[in-house]
């Protein structure tokens, strides 16, 4: 099974409220990623876990949190959503960081 699952598929949030997105994979991949994608733009890496080590991008360091309670699950947490957070959030996993990534279908977040 090469499926990466994301929940929910659609999320509506109010400005200033928290948002928690969930990703899971059953391929025993040690690396899991979160990307933000806006229309007509490239996916933007937000952070990734290599095993239990979290790597966050410098320009989004304070905006996004994440946890990985076990190998299969990874969450993306926004403490206080702003309008600019409206986007598609893509989760991906890979076996190590040198191999192709398997992507989930994404969660479309709309902040009002």
């Amino acid at each position, binding site marked *: 099974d090469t499926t*990466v699952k994301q929940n929910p598929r659609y999320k509506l949030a109010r400005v200033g409220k928290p948002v928690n997105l969930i990703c899971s994979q059953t391929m025993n991949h040690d690396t899991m990623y979160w990307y933000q994608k806006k229309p*007509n*733009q*490239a996916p933007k890496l937000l952070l990734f876990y290599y095993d239990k080590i979290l790597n966050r991008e410098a320009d989004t360091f304070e905006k996004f949190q994440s946890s990985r309670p076990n190998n299969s699950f990874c969450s993306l947490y926004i403490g206080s959503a702003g309008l600019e957070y409206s986007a598609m959030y*893509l989760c991906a996993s890979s076996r190590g960081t*040198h191999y*192709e*990534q398997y992507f989930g*279908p*994404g969660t479309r977040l709309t902040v009002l």
Partner: protein
Amino acid sequence: TQTVSQSDAHVTVFEGDSVELRCNYSYGGSIYLSWYIQHHGRGLQFLLKYYSGNPVVQGVNGFKAEFSKSDSSFHLRKASVHWSDSAVYFCAVRFRNSNNRIFFGDGTQLVVKP
């Protein structure tokens, strides 16, 4: 600066036509190049990759890509497209000193008309 450029935002062809989707990247270090496809409403799917060896790599569904060090390019080609090839195609590059990060291009929307 490490950048990935896909010069065409949209490409429209007819079924049976050949197509080339262009990808150029800015960095001269050792690299790992790949292409991903995204059908409407779905996640990105890996298509093919190049790291070393034969510069022409074969992917699924008749796609192939050719690495050119001199041109800093990794263009994707298909000899005869099908309507089901309509999707957004992303070029992705891992640069040698990018700490294992992949940089994506902005994508090329391919529309195949019947």
